[in-house]
């Protein structure tokens, strides 16, 4: 009997378990299918690569003054010519990219961090605390921007790029705070949050374990658009002279150097490359942000 039972045992071919893909990987795949976003990612990668590995592309140093050869037009030794102090333009372009990209990314992260913390607390607690905090954000948002930046720069010493990052981040966090507060207000009413609260989860666990991971996709998109905005803002500030000092190579600084009438007119090879780099960076980050938003949106119909 036992042998019959044995031979009658149904042999089920064990099915290969397909590992379920996480939301993140699914989103990445959707992102990869979006051609514009891929192009943006590639361009951004090229720009970052070229600036980080700048010594590979040019053997000059961005601070090596060479007064024998100032204001030279493009030539085989100096592909983009030289500027007033004899610095090679291509070198300043590449090394300046480091500064610009660093400032943009770090400032974006700082703004996100500050804004999210503030907005999360405000949105989660609600009630009069929320009203008060949002009042403060309203006041900060209504504060005219340029005088604020100028005054902050006058008070602090922004020759140091980290101070500039702090200043720029300090002026931009109210926008992020207001946005994240809206997101958290929405998330607070979701079923899983209500359920977790019902069984007695602590607030910190709710925020960190449930709400924050679900707002991550929105955060990523916001960071990418902030980076784009900050690249432009930084360049604009340097153009007026409120950014880094001009002797530090940066794209905005290059534009500021050559924005006088004579240089604009006669030396297009000096200011068009930095302008083009700024535009390319912002474009690629915007495309990536668009792609990320479409990829991680749970209601996308791809």
């Amino acid at each position, binding site marked *: 009997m036992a042998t019959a039972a044995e031979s009658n045992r149904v042999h089920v071919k064990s099915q290969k378990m397909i590992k379920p893909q996480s939301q993140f990987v699914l989103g990445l795949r959707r992102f990869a299918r979006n051609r514009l976003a891929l192009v943006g990612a590639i361009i951004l990668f090229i720009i970052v690569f070229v600036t980080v590995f700048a010594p590979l592309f040019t053997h000059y140093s961005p601070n090596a003054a060479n007064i024998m050869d100032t204001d030279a037009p493009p030539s085989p030794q100096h592909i983009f010519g030289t500027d007033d102090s004899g610095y090679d333009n291509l070198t300043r372009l590449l090394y300046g990219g480091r500064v610009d990209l660093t400032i943009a990314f770090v400032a974006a992260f700082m703004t996100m961090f500050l804004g999210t913390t503030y907005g999360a607390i405000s949105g989660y607690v609600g009630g009069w605390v929320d009203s008060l905090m949002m009042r403060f954000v309203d006041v900060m948002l209504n504060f005219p921007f340029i005088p604020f930046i*100028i005054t902050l720069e006058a008070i602090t010493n922004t020759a140091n790029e980290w101070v500039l990052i702090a200043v720029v981040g300090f002026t931009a966090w109210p926008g992020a705070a207001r946005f994240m507060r809206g997101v958290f207000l929405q998330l607070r009413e979701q079923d899983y949050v209500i359920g977790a609260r019902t069984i007695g989860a602590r607030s910190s666990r709710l925020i960190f374990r449930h709400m924050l991971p679900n707002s991550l996709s929105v955060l990523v998109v916001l960071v990418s658009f902030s980076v784009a905005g900050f690249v432009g803002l930084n360049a604009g500030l340097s*153009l007026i002279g409120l950014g880094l000092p001009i002797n530090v190579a940066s794209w905005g600084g290059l534009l500021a150097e050559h924005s006088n009438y004579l240089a*604009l007119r006669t030396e297009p090879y000096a200011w068009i490359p930095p302008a083009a780099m700024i535009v390319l960076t912002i474009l690629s980050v915007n495309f990536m942000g668009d792609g990320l938003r479409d990829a991680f949106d749970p209601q996308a119909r791809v």
Partner: protein
Amino acid sequence: MTAYIVRRLLGLIPTLFIITIIGFIMMHLMPGNAFQALLFNPKIKNGASLLKNLQDQNGLNLSWPQQYVNWIGQMAHGNLGNSFEYNQPVSQLIGEYLPNTLELALAAEIIILIAGIPLGVFQASKVNGKFDISTSFFAIFLFSVPGFIFALFLMFIFSFMLNWLPSIGTVTPGVSWSGDLGDRLSHLILPALSLSLPAIAGYSRLTRGNTLSVIVQDYVRTARAKGLRQNKVLFRHVLRNSIIPIVTQFGFDIGGLFSGAVLIEEIFTWPGMGELSVNAVLNRDYPLILATLMIFAVAVLIGNLIADLFLAAADPRIRYS
């Protein structure tokens, strides 16, 4: 509705006060003051006592709260003080520079609305058609280029290469047609364009999105079924219903336009509030700083108020909150 308006207006006043207080404190935190340069001028004998006299005259030796109260009291009487740097009454300076900025901002807003909204509507009416895809791509491109880079390129192409348009100031000095409408327009075009082009892209995207969500509604289908021409359908039914969020955004952007104009004014040497406020801060010209701060803040607050009023007009829930 009027109750809502009154409530919002009353709510503006504390915000304005807090902004002035914050501005006042930050202004005094800046190192140096307007007169310290006198100490470094070797031709002035007795610099220290002259400095002290000037400071006493202008009330800089009083405590901060006392200075603040003085300034508020003066402003309530309409006296904005004398600029330290220009040695003119501040109200006179503002009267000279503010109209230029208003002219620029107004021209830019008109261009944005006239170009951006119809563009968005037409894009939405033929969704994913050739027109839509090509102009959408173009719009995203324009959106990514900051206004001042536009300014540089426009100036390079139209002023330097083609020599069609001037690139400096508001009027051409010294010629007989200086100050004419045509002259002013030719000076206004490039700055207004560079201020408005990035925003046109943003507004056309916004309009496109809103119009798309309205166009799929049933009443639009009914209108088409009745036999209305596409144009009439678009502009009479669809636009009226999708315009509210756009005008709201417009209200929020008014403040941003003033700040964005600072860079453009710098590049085109347009004598406006931007240059005035930047110079004021750099020269520690306290009355001027406070006055320009007030004007920027009032502009932003009024813009936000207009936006909120439109929102309240559209969504009754907001009126009673």
